[in-house]
């Protein structure tokens, strides 16, 4: 029954959710993962998962969750999948609760919720400060249950390297490599689900895990799967610098009352706890009175970077600001944030319950990813049981989780990723079941399976034989440093063009790199040549998307094209508002569209095209987190309507 088997690559939240749903609906699943699935990068998610369960008497609703998400993403997300996700979110959280996830509780025994960025509601369910780990374990346990029943086979410590496509260009299987024996094998299946997470390692030291090469997405991209919004990557405002990676301090630290500040006077020599309130610059609270420390991540990141690099106010002259929890009760902090405060103490040797943490922004997440399509119904929601939901442009290839480009637009709200991964995973499970019902696939010819496997084996042999003077790990470090320097918080076209040239240089050097290891067992450095080639290929898409998008949208910030809002003190009848909104409309006209990068093996650079954004539910407007612009925008729109009627 090979044609009824689904091949799922990646065992994080998205892949496991897809697997358990597909099993429940009668299919059998093979899961491929570079690590034991329980060690997937989803474990790193800390703060929580969003769903408008509305148990706090705040009048929260899926509709408000939808508006917050679309607005947080600067209107770049297609709206039907987001609406369906927000409406399903409370049920998803309830399901995870039933699976035994140890969510924090209220005194009455209900799920507790906390606040996160980009919303005014308590909407984030959490399990201490290791929510991603706890959710992953919940799904891992269910998949183990299906494994015990014989419905799931796991190929752990295997790496996906190639899609097997039939003559019509439809996926009928994949090739993967055992990372211990280094042998390749072909697997036939009715669909290939790529749930392989983000490509963070192209940015070098980030908050990502050491497995986030993006090598699976790169392999699929090279075979023709489109890459959507590659330039949209998220920089988390509160990272901890480190020599091996940048660790994260969750947004929940601010959700639980953490305040961001620097001394007003950079030369202030007093110990932090003797600096009185008036000499502290709580810059987020002063500039964004409505959302305060809980503005969306892109905004917090830029403010922190500007306070340090433009205003020179970084703590001790360093690129660092205080994230201060010392005013909160220590027991409370241990209960709500224990896991992340332990991590800070373990790595920095300072107890953040007693001394403010020092943090700085760090690359964190890719909103962009493999292009995932959908079918909308008449109400503008995902069509139930359509095989097209989450399917890429290549038939029978699905993308889901951080690996896909949907749900988050140009900036992801905190605690929305865990929801999007599980929700889209469940949807994908349903899609492949719909596909199985409608498809009459003939078994894949064994000669095809053999030849594809042989091709990959030959490619790998060439990598092992590679014996030049360059060290691939050194090239990777340089690539990461360059991407972080020129393509992260602020982007400038001259620097991006320079970066494009540098990446060409890394690609050339990679051809002269050595595999460092000729052995046939657990050869991680020969495999790394392939992974680095994938990172270089994907980084070109990121940089090209960034070069072409001449505007500021969400996390993509190009100061030369900024349309800065009038200061919040500007009276609403001031013409500055009209000018601002006119420019907003012009830029939206030009740039409110999804970037589509297509790989072209005959050219060094990707081909970039654009697709309109499906904004059928909510009209795009300028984002405003100060609480002032709302009235000005309403007035502007009213005057335009009046003009239109006149």
């Amino acid at each position, binding site marked *: 029954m090979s044609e009824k088997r689904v091949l799922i690559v990646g065992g994080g939240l998205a892949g496991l959710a897809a697997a358990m749903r597909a099993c429940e609906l009668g299919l059998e699943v093979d899961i491929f993962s570079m690590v034991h699935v329980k060690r997937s990068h989803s474990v790193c998610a800390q703060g929580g998962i969003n769903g408008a369960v509305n148990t706090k008497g705040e009048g929260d609703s899926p509709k408000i969750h939808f508006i917050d998400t679309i607005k947080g993403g600067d209107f770049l997300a297609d709206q039907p999948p987001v609406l369906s996700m927000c409406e399903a979110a409370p049920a998803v959280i309830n399901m995870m609760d039933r699976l035994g996830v140890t969510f924090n509780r209220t005194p009455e025994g209900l799920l507790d919720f906390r606040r996160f960025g980009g919303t005014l509601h308590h909407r984030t369910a959490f399990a201490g400060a290791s929510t991603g780990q706890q959710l992953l374990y919940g799904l891992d346990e269910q998949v183990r249950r299906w494994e015990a029943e014989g419905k799931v086979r796991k190929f752990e410590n295997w790496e996906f390297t190639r899609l097997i496509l039939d003559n019509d260009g439809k996926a009928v299987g994949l090739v993967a490599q055992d990372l211990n024996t280094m042998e390749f094998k072909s697997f036939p299946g009715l669909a290939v689900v790529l749930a392989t997470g983000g490509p963070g390692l192209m940015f070098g030291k980030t908050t990502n895990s050491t497995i986030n090469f993006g090598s699976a997405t790169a392999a699929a991209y090279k075979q023709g799967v489109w890459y959507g919004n590659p330039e949209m990557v998220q920089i988390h405002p509160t990272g901890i610098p480190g020599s091996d990676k940048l*660790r994260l301090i969750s947004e929940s630290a601010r959700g639980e009352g953490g305040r961001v500040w620097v001394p007003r006077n950079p030369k202030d020599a007093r110990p932090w706890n003797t600096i009185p309130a008036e000499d502290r610059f709580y810059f987020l609270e002063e500039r964004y009175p409505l959302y305060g420390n809980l503005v969306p991540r892109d905004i917090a990141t830029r403010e922190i970077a500007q306070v340090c690099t433009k205003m020179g106010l970084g703590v001790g002259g360093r690129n660092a600001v205080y994230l201060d929890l010392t005013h909160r009760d220590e027991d409370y902090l241990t209960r709500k944030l224990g896991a992340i405060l332990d991590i800070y103490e373990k790595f920095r040797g300072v107890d953040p319950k007693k001394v403010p943490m020092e943090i700085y922004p760090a690359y964190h997440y890719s909103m962009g990813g493999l292009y995932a399509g959908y079918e909308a119904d008449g109400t503008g929601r995902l069509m139930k049981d359509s095989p097209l939901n989450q399917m890429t442009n290549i038939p029978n290839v699905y993308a889901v989780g951080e690996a896909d480009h949907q749900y988050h637009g140009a900036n992801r709200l905190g605690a929305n990723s865990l929801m999007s991964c599980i929700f889209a995973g469940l949807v994908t499970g349903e899609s492949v079941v719909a596909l199985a019902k409608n498809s009459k696939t003939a078994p894949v010819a064994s000669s095809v399976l053999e030849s594809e496997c042989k091709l990959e084996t030959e490619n790998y042999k060439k990598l092992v034989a590679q014996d030049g003077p360059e060290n691939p790990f050194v090239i990777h470090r340089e690539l990461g440093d360059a991407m972080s320097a020129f393509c992260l918080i602020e982007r400038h076209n001259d620097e991006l063009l320079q970066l494009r040239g540098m990446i060409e240089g890394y690609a050339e050097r990679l051809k002269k790199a050595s595999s460092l290891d000729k052995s046939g067992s657990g050869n991680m450095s020969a495999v790394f040549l392939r992974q680095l080639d994938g990172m270089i290929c994907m980084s070109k898409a990121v940089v090209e998307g960034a070069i072409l998008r001449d505007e500021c949208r969400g996390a993509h910030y190009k100061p030369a094209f900024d349309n800065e809002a009038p200061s919040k003190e500007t009276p609403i009848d001031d013409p500055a508002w009209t000018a601002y909104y006119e420019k907003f409309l012009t830029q939206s006209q030009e740039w409110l569209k999804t970037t589509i990068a297509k790989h072209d093996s005959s050219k060094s650079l990707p081909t970039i095209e654009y697709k309109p954004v499906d904004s059928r539910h909510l009209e795009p407007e300028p984002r405003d987190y100060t609480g002032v612009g709302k009235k000005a925008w309403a007035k502007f729109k009213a005057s335009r309507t009046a003009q239109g009627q006149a």
Partner: protein
Amino acid sequence: MSKTVEVRIKRQDSPKAPAYWDEFSIPYEEGMNVISILQSIRRDPRNKQGKTVTPVNWESSCLEEVCGACTMVINGKVRQACTALVDQISQPISLEPMTKFPVERDLRVNRQRIFENLKKINGWVDVDGYHDLGPGPRQSPIDQELTYKFSECMSCGCCMEVCPQFTMDGNFIGAAVIGQTQLFNMHPSGAMHAQKRLDAVTSEGGIQDCGLAQQCVKACPKHIPLVEAIGQVQRSVTVSQVFGSFSKRK
């Protein structure tokens, strides 16, 4: 002369090859941990004698001590490499693979046995389905804190590495898996199938093989109360054995 870090690494080229030691002398960086030592070696894979060697193979993922991947024996103590800070441990730093699991290569071992044992004890909640069935059972904040503690277990294997009863060739399931048995038996709907887990945990290689050496709880990086879990599971087993089918299925 610039400051260096001295490291000795126990290596093995393949599962059946003999083990050997390599020594490295690496430039010191502030804030270094064992992971950054290994990363530094692969950027310049030469040993202390100046001989070019293959980069060291090790397993890692999150580097935040929540995934369990980078577990190894560091200066004789089993722990995660990511939280082993160079400034806090003595040199030369010795790195060895765990000894209770078969070596795949260098510091990488095969811990599949842990996951097989989780399967054996029915380590999951038997839900009716993944469709919308409303909220789960209510739970007090105190119970949540207790279950959360057990649920932090990342299957790293530290408790098994230090356990005198857990051997490479034996079949003892180990403390972590007994802890997980307790976790699911504490869950309100998980408890409905407690007997199934108790039967599994008393089958061959089960809880009766525990010698109460209590090393597990000292080695656990997440401070999970494993000895307590063993005691509680043991009590439940006794109750179910004494009262048989008349016992409340808990």
